[in-house]
């Protein structure tokens, strides 16, 4: 019996040996990998309870700060004084619901690395910087408020950019949510906003693609002007319906009408009145490369270089066997899709003489004692169009606000230009756009507003009637200064 007892004992020891090997694998070999795995709740727990640097608006008002909730365990909790106003760009840092927005993307900078671990104590002893950094944003609370007031209960987004620097002045997505309730661990609220069909958590400014519709005609026109295919005075035939080559599709104008009573119409007038048949013809006349390259110069299919996650706007790059598709793309339909940030960049580029500035939200990072660590310098992203083309486009857009579809964006005492869009959205009712710019003696602003599904007006909503007044109020708030 002793022989078999010894063999069983040997079997047991063999398994103990295997356990040591497994432990070596888990704790020594894979240990650091498991420790730093994004799914490891320790990472979040460690960050959530620690002090984070503050986030302030461009005027210095606090958007997010850490308050000590328990001095014994050095636990901190994030609080957002503006509640839901900055929820999408700033996001939240919570224990139960993880992190989102800048709170997530800049978590490493914001979090204090002070902790009770051995390496943390060594850092402390060596005087290494263990405090979290603060962030000063380019966003303005007044403009966020104006965007919220304008959108009201409608679904949509507002993005405003300073054209000469690329500073993002407003970034508001509707509906929004209250990060403070998530910090408080309100799971019922968390579930509700997760399940809400209007998707309050979705940042419509940078994580949603919309057909830009007629707002895209700015890019089509830029391609026509830059390539010499047409200028503002070029005459086009006014037809109620454009039959597309090699296809059964047609392009017709808004309300199936004529653009100029059947008389030949200039590009300038067609732009101001947003005549689809004219831009369809232009799409058929443009060289494919000129058209696609222009869209990409404005940022389509490109990384815009925003200092936050931003999905790329899309345009097909091959129209060789699909002239009909190019005509439909020229009026911003078919497969053209854009984020509101992208469309604000289009307006900003025109307003800035054709030079596209790299957009950014974080103006500077600063230490606990408010000394600035790093200041973001404006950078040119791309010279999208020449100054002549930019000037001509600007005139077309100003004309649109003065006497075309964008009249309700006009601001007294300011030069305002824009382009409306009423795009066939997926929801049945159209997505309503206004992109544009405004300037007075001191300040300039470019903007994109989108309202989903016809807004409060519904099927009869137009970009000029619904989106343009919202843009007007946000731009006026900026020009009025503070």
């Amino acid at each position, binding site marked *: 019996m002793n022989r078999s007892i010894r063999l069983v004992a040997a079997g047991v020891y063999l398994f103990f040996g295997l356990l040591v090997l497994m432990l070596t694998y888990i704790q020594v070999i894979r*240990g650091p990998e498991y420790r730093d795995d994004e799914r490891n709740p320790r990472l979040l727990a460690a960050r959530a309870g620690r002090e984070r640097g503050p986030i302030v608006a461009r005027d210095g008002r606090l958007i997010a700060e850490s308050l000590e909730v328990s001095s014994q365990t050095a636990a901190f909790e994030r609080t957002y004084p503006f509640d839901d106003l900055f929820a999408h760009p700033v996001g939240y840092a919570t224990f139960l619901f993880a992190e989102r927005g800048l709170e997530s993307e800049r978590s490493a900078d914001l979090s204090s690395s002070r902790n009770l671990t051995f390496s943390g104590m060594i850092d402390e002893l060596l005087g290494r910087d263990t405090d979290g950094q603060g962030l000063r944003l380019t966003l303005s609370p007044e403009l966020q408020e104006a965007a919220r007031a304008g959108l009201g209960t409608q679904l949509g987004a507002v993005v405003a950019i300073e054209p000469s620097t690329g500073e993002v002045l407003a970034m508001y997505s509707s509906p929004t949510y209250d990060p403070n309730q998530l910090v408080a661990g309100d799971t019922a609220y968390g579930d509700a906003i997760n399940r809400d069909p209007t998707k309050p958590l979705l940042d419509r400014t940078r994580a949603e693609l919309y057909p830009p519709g007629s707002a895209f005609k700015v890019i089509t026109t830029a391609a026509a002007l830059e390539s010499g295919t047409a200028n503002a005075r070029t005459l086009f035939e006014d037809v109620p319906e454009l039959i597309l080559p090699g296809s059964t599709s047609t392009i017709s104008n808004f309300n199936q009408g004529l653009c100029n009573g059947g008389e030949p119409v200039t590009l300038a007038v067609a732009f101001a009145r947003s005549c689809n048949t004219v831009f369809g013809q232009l799409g058929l006349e443009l060289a494919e490369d000129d058209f696609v390259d222009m869209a990409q110069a404005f940022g389509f299919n490109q990384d815009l270089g925003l200092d936050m996650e931003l999905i790329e706007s899309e345009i097909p790059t091959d129209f060789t066997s699909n002239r009909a598709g190019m005509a439909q793309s020229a009026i911003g339909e078919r497969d053209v899709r854009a984020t509101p940030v992208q469309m604000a960049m289009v307006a900003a580029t025109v307003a800035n003489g054709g030079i596209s500035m790299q957009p950014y939200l974080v103006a500077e990072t600063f230490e606990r004692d408010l000394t600035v660590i790093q200041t973001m310098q404006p950078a040119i992203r791309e010279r999208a169009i020449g100054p002549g083309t930019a000037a001509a486009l600007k005139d077309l857009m100003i004309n649109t606000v003065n006497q075309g579809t964008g009249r309700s964006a006009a601001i007294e005492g300011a030069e305002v230009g824009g382009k409306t869009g009423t795009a066939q959205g997926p929801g049945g009712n159209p997505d309503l756009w206004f992109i544009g710019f405004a300037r007075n003696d001191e300040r300039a602003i470019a903007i994109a507003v989108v309202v989903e599904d016809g807004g409060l007006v519904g099927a009869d909503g137009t970009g000029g009637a619904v989106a343009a007044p919202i843009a007007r109020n946000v731009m006026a708030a900026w020009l009025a200064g503070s």
Partner: protein
Amino acid sequence: MNRIAEASLIVGSAVLAALGVAIANLSSGGSVDAQVALTFVSFVVSWGGLWVTVRRLTPGANPYLLPLASILSAVGMVEVYRLNPSLGSLQRWWLLTAAALGSLTILWLRDGTAVLRRYRYLLLMAGVLLLMSPLLPGSLPLGGVTVNGSRLWLRLNLWGDSSLQFQPGELGKLALIVFFASYLAERRQALTLVHRKVGTLEIPEPRQLMPLLVAWLASLIVMVYQRDLGASLLLFAVFMAMLYMATGQAVFPLTGVGLFAIGTAGAFQAFSHVQRRYSAWIAPFDDFEGAGYQIVQSLFAMGSGSIAGSGIGLGRPDLIPSAATDFIFAAIAEETGFVGAVGVLIGFALLVAAGFGIAVRSRDPFRKLLAAGITTVIGVQSIIIIGGVTRLLPLTGITLPFMSYGGSSLLSNTVALSILLVISQEEHR
């Protein structure tokens, strides 16, 4: 090793437990409080008391068992307290009860373990009844309860709303091992010598394979009706090991493994929870929010602990599900690191080595098999649960002897340890 060294080690384990509780307090912002003193006192009274009993009644008993068990339970106590101080104070009461029960066992068996042999059919019945008792309807004053999908618990309704819960299977397991040891000690000659020839092959008389079938059926019942894969695996592995140790014939465990494989394959086909366990074992990260959640949390915990550990009270073992019971080893591995985790394994290896040593030195087949059986249970049980949390084996919920929170487990393991002590005394005479 003399008795003074043994006593010093036991006092050492009390100091270890008290220090650990103090550190756990300090690292969560508390102070050295009454909990530290209570822990020290409860260790001195329980393990020290058991030591005094052994010293008085069975002075020739093996000197390594008690210090090893008390050190393991000290580490377990610190982690349980750190995870949940109120569970920690309950565990102190369980520890005192277990030591009392251990002392009573030694008192009862001070003249030898032969008395156990006499009651073996009673023990068989008791063991089977205890194993099956959680299947009693929950509406009775004494009825079964389903916890986390497994029906292992028995609840005794006391006055009003208060009730006492325990896992009768833990003690039932021990009763069955005693029965098996005495049954095999008697029948091992027959099992070894009587063969039937099938062609050129010699196989044991089919009638002799009955106990094997009984064990197989018992473990299948536990697996199917109580959904307790861990206990089922443990029971079966220990019975097969005992059968092999009794007969020295590998054909028994090999047939047994074959039967178990068939049973497991059948269970895999029939029960989705078995399939989930399997996929969670093979690829835990594929469904890390679902079936793989527990094991992934365990891996994250141990990985975060790395070599030296986070320190007691400084990790986040509270993020592991069932950290104080099934996953106590992962929690210890997080806070004491690879060093501490291997230390725990060494502790179990030494305990098992001492147990097998007692078995090998025993002159009587019954005592030999009983000592080997008890030792195998402790060894296999720790391998199953530590293997489960480290992904060496599929995860099955089972307690880690002397370390997990839980009264039933601590009681039955302390009684088993007391029986081992008595057996070692008998050989000393």
